[in-house]
């Protein structure tokens, strides 16, 4: 297979991955951020302490987190068809990706928000601020460096998930690698895909870390120091790509 044959395939697949990961990240952040914050607020000693709500959200998030993505995807097929009218294609893949991403991000948000100094919350309460003020003016801005780092981790995880989603007709780079590399023994295309994914993940990680660190350096003291994740292999993404290959 020559480069000119590969190029249109890669472009098409790249776009599909971008759509899947882009939308599902957006949805994961929009859904996961409030859930993560609620987990902290409703916890014991929290501003909205509510054991029942906390337990329920916690359980849902745990199940969402622990279910292997491929099973979640299959389990959600009816729901996906109901939302998008189909179970095939990038748009259909966004549904399970987002639903897998929400609890993933929510847990990271919870950890990040928990690390915000309780004294700051108290200070805002002493000024006469309500819970919403605390969330808006303290929890989110103070946890921002960690939240950025969490978003990076989520994007990378979703790239990994999207490779799996692709195999069920979602398209994308992962799917391309499987179809050509595994089914048709086009190892050239497969390696190019792997390289593109590797470079993309590194770039995202780099950009995320740089942003988080820049914010953190400005802020200094409070908020968790975002760890350098470049060398760690905890991301499902790397594992999934090699599995696919």
């Amino acid at each position: 297979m020559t480069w000119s044959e590969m190029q249109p395939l890669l472009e098409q697949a790249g776009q599909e991955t971008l759509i899947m990961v882009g939308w599902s990240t957006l949805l994961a952040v929009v859904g996961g951020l409030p859930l993560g914050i609620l987990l902290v607020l409703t916890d014991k000693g929290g501003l909205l302490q509510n054991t029942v709500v906390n337990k329920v959200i916690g359980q849902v998030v745990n199940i969402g987190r622990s279910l292997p993505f491929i099973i979640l995807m299959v389990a959600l097929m009816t729901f996906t068809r109901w939302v998008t009218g189909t179970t095939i294609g990038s748009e259909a893949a966004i549904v399970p990706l987002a639903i897998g991403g929400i609890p993933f991000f929510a847990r990271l948000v919870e950890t990040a928000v928990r690390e915000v100094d309780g004294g700051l919350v108290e200070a805002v309460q002493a000024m006469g601020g309500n819970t919403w003020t605390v969330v808006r003016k303290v929890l989110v801005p103070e946890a921002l460096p960690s939240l950025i780092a969490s978003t990076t981790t989520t994007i990378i995880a979703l790239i990994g998930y999207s490779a799996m989603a692709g195999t069920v007709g979602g398209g994308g780079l992962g799917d391309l690698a499987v179809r050509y590399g595994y089914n048709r023994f086009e190892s050239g295309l497969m390696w190019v895909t792997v390289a593109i994914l590797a470079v993309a993940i590194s770039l995202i990680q780099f950009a995320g870390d740089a942003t988080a660190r820049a914010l953190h350096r400005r802020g200094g003291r409070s908020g968790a120091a975002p760890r350098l994740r470049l060398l760690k292999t905890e991301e499902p993404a790397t594992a999934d790509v090699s599995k696919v290959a």
Partner: protein
Amino acid sequence: MITTSGLTKVYRSRGREVTALDGVDLHVREGEVYGVIGQSGAGKSSLIRCVNLLERPTAGTVTVAGQDLTALAGRGPRAGKELRQARSRIGMVFQHFNLLSSRTVQDNIELPLEILGKTGQERSRKALELLDLVGLADKAKSYPAQLSGGQKQRVGIARALAGDPKVLLSDEATSALDPETTRSILQLLRDLNRQLGLTVLLITHEMDVVKSICDSAALMEKGRIVESGTVSDLLATPGSALAAALFPVGGDPSGDDRTVLDVTFHGEAATQPVISHLSRTYNIDISILGAAIDTVGGLQVGRMRIELPGRYEDNVVPVGFLREQGLQIDVVNNDAVGDGQPLLVKEGAK
């Protein structure tokens, strides 16, 4: 300005109960600096946090500026609108400053004004004015991480003043600072108290803080106030533990069968002629074990520990003579001698 009556706070955690406040009656007058001192765990923080209801009292009432805050508390754990409004009129300063690291100094000071719904223009005018007041006009655009501890606390104080409060609460505001910086922050609080007529309730475990700026003080032990009053009244109270701690004089008796007296005199009263007069009149040898003159709460106070030969029973007449001269005499019993601060153990900053 601040009155608590029967204030009680019981913490319940995992079946265990801790009574942090046990019927505290506190009365802080308008325009004064009131210090609450006590050992770690005495309930000082619980007390100050109950004043603006950051902590719900288990029983008792809190009145600030004539408003019964406990009545505004409502039932649930969340603060209702009225309580939040009342809080915005009470400034609070914290031991660890509690500044938002994501905001500049100016934006930190503007935060309470944002909560009050002030416009951007009003906010920045007020913030810059306050920065000027606390002597940090050039740091408006810095981040808290770029400031020293003392500067951070100045920002904390400016922020606490943003809502033009009549009352300032301070929980160990200087405990994380070195002695030099502590002095400058205390001076600032004193100046604000004088200039703005601000009522200040401060919590501390350092006697020096009370000594340098407080008009009144209370000593807390195990959730109760065991002594309280204006500093001058306390110093004039025989046997006051606070007075002894505020103004310790040392000196051990030279042997048994001696009477040791602490002589306290205020302002211009001089002991020298009195002591020599005593010595001549009764023909006794008096040794001076220790003496000091200090300024406590803006008052000149002198204390002298003297020793008379013989037991107390033998010295009733000379002691009576000294009292007649208008001096305050505390008879030091032998067990307590050598222990200038019987009740308060100094701790390092935590």
